[in-house]
């Protein structure tokens, strides 16, 4: 579904990504882990071109997206993204947050979008918050709504950039639960995370990035029980 070829990204003189090749298939859940500064967020943000790659190719459904010819806005409608800081629109109500994009992009009429928004909110148990403003919500509620906002576009892939890192510990569970439901529904997901428990339980494959390179990649069982590289062994000894 997404394939990445020799992706590099530099900010000035700093090389954040140094040649990444990877293939993500439909229905897979990929967890991306690594120490801070390893380039995992940059990698994720390159997938929907929020970050412009310095070189390399990114394909979405066999179409190269980092070219001038490609209509990136069109591609992004099929790739939902969830941010660490939620990034809900503070001047809009929850329902308006969810319906803005589908209506503006002509996917639905306002009535259809409203109906769909309530349906999605019902699913995560926040229907009564439809007319609340983001400031009135807890972090966990905000993040669940941010997920729903992305889902309202019916994306084929969901990108998560450390979705639980800005949350109080007691709210992490509710967000991960929504993500687990998504994974069960066979959504293709790429999740940058520090939640090793989530990675172990939900991911099909785990990607370990360090120094802008993929150091190791394995199914969760193997990833945690028999890490090959010393760098990963060291990392796991610190986080587990």
């Amino acid at each position: 579904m997404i394939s990445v070829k020799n992706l590099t990204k530099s900010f000035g003189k700093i090389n954040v990504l140094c040649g990444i090749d990877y293939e993500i298939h439909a229905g897979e859940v990929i967890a991306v882990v690594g120490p801070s500064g390893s380039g995992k967020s940059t990698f994720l943000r390159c997938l929907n071109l929020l970050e412009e790659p310095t070189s390399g190719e990114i394909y979405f459904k066999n179409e190269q997206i980092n070219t001038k010819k490609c209509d990136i806005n069109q591609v992004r409608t099929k790739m939902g993204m969830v941010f660490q800081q939620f990034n809900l629109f503070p001047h809009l109500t929850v329902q308006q947050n969810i319906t803005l994009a589908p209506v503006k992009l002509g996917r639905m009429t306002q009535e259809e979008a409203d109906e769909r928004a309530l349906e999605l909110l019902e699913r995560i148990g926040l229907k009564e918050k439809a007319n609340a403003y983001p400031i009135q919500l807890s972090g966990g509620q905000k993040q669940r709504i941010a997920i729903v906002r992305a889902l309202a576009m019916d994306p084929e892939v969901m990108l998560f950039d450390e979705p639980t890192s800005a949350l109080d510990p007691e709210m992490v569970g509710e967000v991960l639960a929504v993500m687990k439901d998504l994974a069960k529904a066979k959504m293709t997901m790429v999740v940058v995370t520090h939640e090793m428990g989530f990675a172990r339980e939900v991911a099909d494959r785990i990607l370990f990035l360090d120094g802008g390179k993929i150091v190791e990649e394995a199914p969760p069982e193997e990833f945690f029980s028999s890490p090959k590289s010393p760098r990963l062994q060291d990392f796991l000894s610190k986080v587990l």
Partner: protein
Amino acid sequence: MFDDFFGKFSRAFLENNFSGLRLMADGLKNTILITLGALLLGVILGTILAVAKVLPTKNIFNKILAGIANVYIAVFRGTPVVVQLLLFYFGICAKIDIDPVLAAVICLGMNSGAYVAEIIRSGILAVDHGQMEAGRSLGLTYSTTLIRIVLPQAIKNILPALGNELIALIKETSVVSFITVVDITKVAGNIIAKTYEPFVPYLFLALIYLVIVLFATWLVGILERRMRQSDQR
């Protein structure tokens, strides 16, 4: 100073069937017309200039736009508004038959636009970059995200500064008599030229400006409260 205050007031404004007051009303009409026109033009121009300055400077076209905006702002902030009025009305429009009120609207509006541009730009820059990213990640275009997501938040934050600019604009209209517009300041001067009693007309004039400014402040306050709706926990 205050002796025969009512006599002076009566001679200035009430005699000859309230002719002074009628003239002031006509002047007030011009003052308000110029303020509103310049405000509208200033906000429109300011928004365009601010956007031109914050566009990502990826391509040459955006760089040129930003350059034009920079020059515009430098020129209009760097020269006195009276000089701009004189140059525009007597210089540039010398051969064109233009209504001086319209000329004042254009000139003050273009001048105000330069200040408004910097106010709006500061508002746009203060909105978290994550907002733009969130909008773009949903597939919205740059301009839709800017108009629907960034600008509303920016405007909310800069309303107090825009209120300041509106107040400055109201008072700045008092120089339009330089290009033959008869506003309230000019009318007060004309009345004094007849009565030779400057204190009361000028005091009344100051009072009128004060009332207009207080009214504008009140309106901005209402607008601010309405836009702060989403801040209530």
